[in-house]
């Protein structure tokens, strides 16, 4: 019996704000409301990384939140997919290059789907999640680690340079 077909019937979502302006978060919550109602696809906003399949990240990764992001990602059991929601999470957005921000989520954890927009629209998020489900179905239960864990540690006091730590990613799905 092929169990992986059932993955896309009950994707449980974990939503993490890595330091954004809260705009995309409100849009994500609007998806759960009566107008868009993503629960009809079986999605639940769990809030518990150990029981969720999809990590929705919003906002640029600040220096305070990067450890939490990697930690939360590590706690999710495979198969799992990551969606970077909004311009900030995808590239850093308007916060890119600021002293307190690191830029996009993909510098720390492998991202499967990028959803653009500032802020994103609910339809885009739903479309992104539906594309993520196709990726989720094809994934295996192999261990996936964060990008940062594969890299050498950054020395104390050094300014992070995006070009040096950016992840090698294959062509991402752009929406």
């Amino acid at each position, binding site marked *: 019996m092929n169990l992986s077909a*059932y993955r896309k019937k009950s994707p449980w979502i974990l939503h993490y704000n890595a330091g954004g302006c809260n705009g995309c978060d409100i849009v994500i919550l609007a998806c759960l409301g009566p107008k868009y109602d993503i629960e009809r696809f079986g999605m639940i906003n769990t809030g518990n990384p150990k029981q969720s399949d999809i990590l929705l990240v919003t906002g640029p990764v600040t220096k305070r939140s990067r450890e939490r992001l990697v930690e939360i990602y590590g706690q999710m059991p495979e198969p799992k997919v990551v969606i970077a929601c909004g311009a900030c999470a995808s590239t850093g957005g308007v916060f890119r290059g600021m002293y307190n921000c690191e830029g996009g989520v993909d510098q720390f954890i492998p991202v499967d789907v990028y959803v653009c927009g500032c802020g994103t629209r609910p339809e885009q998020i739903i479309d992104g999640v539906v594309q993520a489900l196709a990726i989720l179905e094809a994934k295996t239960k192999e261990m996936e680690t964060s990008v940062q864990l594969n890299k050498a540690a950054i020395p104390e006091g050094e300014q992070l340079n995006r070009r040096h730590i950016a992840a090698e990613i294959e062509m991402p799905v752009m929406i």
Partner: protein
Amino acid sequence: MNSTLIAILLILVAPFVGGLLYGFERIVKARMQRRIGPPLLQPFYDFIKLADKRKMVVHSAHAFLGIMHFFSLWFALAVLLLGGDLILVIFLHLLSSALLILAAYSTRSIFSHLGANRMAISILAYEPVLIIIAVSIYILTGSFDAGAAFSSEQPLLYKMPLAFIALLLVLPIKMKKSPFDVAEAHQEITGGAELEFSGIFFEALYTAKWLDYVFCYTLVFLFAGSNILLGIALMAFTFLYLNALDNSSARVNYKQMLRFSLGVSFSLAFINLLINSLS
């Protein structure tokens, strides 16, 4: 003999019935919020998906206690459906909750500990009421057996309406529904005691939740005696009442819950007991 066969059949299909009930409840809750809601078989899809996740265990005793929670709850339900001793049923249910509390305390997560604390407080809130109800049933039927209540000619509801109201007031605590869902509190402590379970081990807790639904609705059915139609009506009423309450109320804190439960629900059940024992 025939009723025993029906009881055994019910025990075997209890998780499926509970799953369907949970799926139906999610639809009803969604419709109350003007949403469409998930398909009816959604809990089973979740079940299959959870079995397919990579296994992550905090430590083996933690996972074992979670699975034992499921089996002890199933055993408690079996004793109740077979018409066993009500006090035994209540304490077996307590045992299953205690196993989950132990599991939650055995991890190092703060949320898990908080959930275990709150679960213990919830037990303190609903357990005395259930025991008083069991004693009332003993006074009316002359036996602690659930079988005596199931087979009584006159429905117990007519003799102990206050106890039924008390049961309705403690059921949200037991089933972890608003306003008394401090033990689970998804937005606050992200599930509490079930926090550290994942994948196939969370499945045990997820299924135990379905069994708990069947357990609670069987307790409601107890009040109808041998009148099956009245029993179904009572269960339907309780179902709608619980979901309406869950959708329309905000969470109270554990002190308010304890005060309300021991002040109002316990008093109602106790007054009912006094009336029953005096008349």
